[in-house]
C-alpha cells in the first residue's frame, strides 16, 4: 500500500504535466477535427483532405522526403557512429561535442545559414557556376534538394547518437574473431557490426523519420510556399485561412501516420525486452 502511494507521489508531477500539456490538447484537437461549422459531428474535414489530390500530393511529398532524409541520415550516421565508437575516448568526446554543438543553436538560425549558402550568389551555387558546372548563376533555394540538405543537418545528431549508443556496446572480440576467421574489414562491418547495430539504426531512423514528417520550420524556409509539406499545410489552415477544424483533422492524420510508423518498432522492441 505504502509503495503505491510513494509510486504515485513520484510519478504524479510527470503524469499531471502529461495530462495537462499533452492529453488534454490532443483530446481537444481530436474533438475539433470532427466538428463541422455548426458544431455538428462530421467527417467532412477528413474527406476533404483525403479526397483531394492536392493534399494527397502534400502527404506524398512529406513521406518521400522524410524517407530520403532518414536514409541519408542513417547512411552518414552509421559509419560516423562506428568510427566514433572505435577511437580514443578523448577524441570521441570531441566528436560528440562537435555533433551536439549545432543542436545548441536554434533550428531557425541554422536554416538561415543554409539560405545564405544555397541562394543565388551563395557559396554553393556560386562555386558551381564559377567552376563551370552550370551555365548561369542560379539558386538552390525553394527546391526539394534544399529541404533535404537542411533537414539532414538538423537530424543527423539524433541518428548518429542513437546508433553510437548501440555500437559502443558491441563486443570488440566479435569483430576480432571475424577478422581472424578471414573476413576483411568491410565484410566484418557488413556481416557482424551492421546486424548488431540494427536496433540503434532502427531507433535513430524512426526518430529522424518522425521528426522529419512533422517538421515545419526548415521545409517552409528552404522549400518556400510552392513546396508545402503536411506541417506547413496545418499551419496555413490554422493561421492563414483560419480553418481550425480542418487544421485539427490534418493534425490527427499526421499523428495517426506517425503512430503507424512507430508501431512495428514498438512491437519489435517489446519482443526484445520482454
Amino acid at each position, binding site marked *: 500500500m505504502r509503495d503505491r502511494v510513494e509510486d504515485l507521489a513520484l510519478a504524479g508531477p510527470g503524469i499531471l504535466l502529461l495530462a495537462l500539456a499533452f492529453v488534454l490538447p490532443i483530446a481537444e484537437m481530436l474533438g475539433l477535427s470532427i466538428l463541422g461549422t455548426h458544431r455538428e459531428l462530421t467527417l467532412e474535414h477528413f474527406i476533404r483532405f483525403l479526397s483531394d489530390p492536392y493534399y494527397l500530393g*502534400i502527404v506524398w511529398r512529406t513521406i518521400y522526403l522524410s524517407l530520403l532524409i532518414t536514409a541519408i541520415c542513417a547512411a552518414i550516421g552509421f559509419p560516423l557512429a562506428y568510427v566514433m565508437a572505435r577511437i580514443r575516448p578523448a577524441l570521441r568526446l570531441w566528436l560528440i561535442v562537435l555533433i551536439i554543438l549545432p543542436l545548441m543553436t536554434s533550428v531557425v538560425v541554422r536554416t538561415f545559414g543554409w*539560405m545564405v549558402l544555397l541562394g543565388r550568389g551563395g557559396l554553393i551555387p556560386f562555386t558551381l557556376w564559377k567552376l563551370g558546372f552550370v551555365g548561369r548563376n542560379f539558386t538552390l533555394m525553394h527546391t526539394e534538394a534544399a529541404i533535404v540538405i537542411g533537414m539532414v543537418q538538423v537530424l543527423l545528431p539524433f541518428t548518429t547518437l542513437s546508433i553510437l549508443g548501440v555500437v559502443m556496446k558491441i563486443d570488440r572480440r566479435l569483430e576480432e574473431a571475424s577478422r581472424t576467421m578471414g573476413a576483411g574489414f568491410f565484410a566484418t562491418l557488413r556481416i557482424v557490426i551492421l546486424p548488431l547495430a540494427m536496433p540503434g539504426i532502427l531507433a535513430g531512423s524512426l526518430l529522424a523519420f518522425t521528426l522529419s514528417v512533422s517538421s515545419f520550420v526548415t521545409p517552409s524556409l528552404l522549400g518556400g510556399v*510552392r513546396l508545402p509539406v503536411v506541417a506547413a499545410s496545418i499551419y496555413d489552415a490554422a493561421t492563414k485561412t483560419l480553418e481550425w477544424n480542418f487544421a485539427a483533422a490534418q493534425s490527427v492524420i499526421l499523428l495517426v501516420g506517425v503512430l503507424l510508423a512507430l508501431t512495428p518498432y514498438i512491437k519489435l522492441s517489446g519482443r526484445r525486452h520482454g
Partner: protein
Amino acid sequence: MFARVSQIAGVLAVAGALASPAAAKDKLVINSYGGAYEQIHRKLVIEPFMKKYDADVQVITAYSADALAQLRAQKAAPQFDVIHFSGGQEVVAAREGLISPIKIEELSNGKDLYPFATEGLSRGEGPVHAVAAIGLLYNKDKAPKKPAKWADLWDPAYKDHVVLTDLSNSYGLLGFLMMNKIKGGSIQNPDPGFEAVKGLLGSAVVVSTSPEMQQNFAQNDAWIAPYAQDYAYTLRKAGLPIEFVQGAEGTPAVYLTANLVANRPSQELAKKFIDFSLSSEVQAGWANELRYSPTNKATKLDDTVAKEVVYGEQAVSGLMRFDPVAVDAARASLVERWKKLIAR
C-alpha cells in the same frame, strides 16, 4: 468541459492580474508587425504614449492573420488591449464580437480624419490610422525599363525576374485582386486572375513574407514585384535601388486599422492609445519614417515625402478599396485555390 477549463484559466489569469502589486502602472498589451515597422511603431507611438500617460505598453509581434487567430483563441480571456490589422481582419473581428465599437466623438482626432478612415466605425471596426498603397516595385538599375501599368508584369522583358507574393499575405492578396481586375475578373470571379498568374509562374518566384521579398531583390536578382509603397522605401533604405510606381489601372491599398479589443478592463486607456495613433504628428512621423500615407487631413509633410506617399484630398480620392467584406468572404477559397495553383 474544455470551455469550463478555459473559463477557470481565464478567471485565474484575471485574478492574478488583479493581485499584482497596486503600484504597477496601467498596462496595455498590443500587437505590432515586427521588423522596421515595429521599431518605428515604438518610437512614434508606443514610447511617447507611455511617457504621456505614464503607462506600460507590452508589444507582441503578430501579423494580422496570426493576431486574429490569437484573438479568437483567447476569446474567453483576451490578452490584447489594442489589436492592429492590415488585411481587413477587423471586419471579421467586429462581426465575431472580438473587438468593441468606438464612437467618433470618443476620438479627439476623429473630426480631422478623411471619411474613408472612419467609415468602418459604424460596423464596429477600429479607425484607419495609416494607408499603404499597392503598386509595382522595380529595380531601377537592373530592370530594362520602368514599368507603368499592372499589365507590364506580363511583359517578356521582365521574364525570370518577377516576384509574386502569397495570398496569405495582405499585400499579396490585394496585388492578386488587382491583377485579376485588370484581366477582367472580380472578387467573385477570380478565374481570369488565376489564369493570368499561371502564365507567370514558370518564370517567377513566389514569396510569403516581406523579408523574403527583400532577399529576392538583394540576392536573387528580382526586377519587378507587385507590392506596397512603404516597402519600396524600406528597400531603398537598405541600399537597394528600388522605386515604386503606381499602376496606371489604379492603386489598391492596405488600410491599417487600430482596434479596441472587447472584454478587457483597460478600454479607456486603450481608446487613448488608438486616438494617439491618429494624431497628425504621429501620422507625419509614419510618412517621414516609412512612407505610409496619412489618414488625418491636418498632417503636414515636406515636399519630398509628400511625393512618395498618397497625400492631399485629391490624391486620396484616387485610392481604391476592394470591399473588405467581400474579400473576407472569398479569402479562404482564394487562398486554397492559389495554394493549389502554385504548388509544384
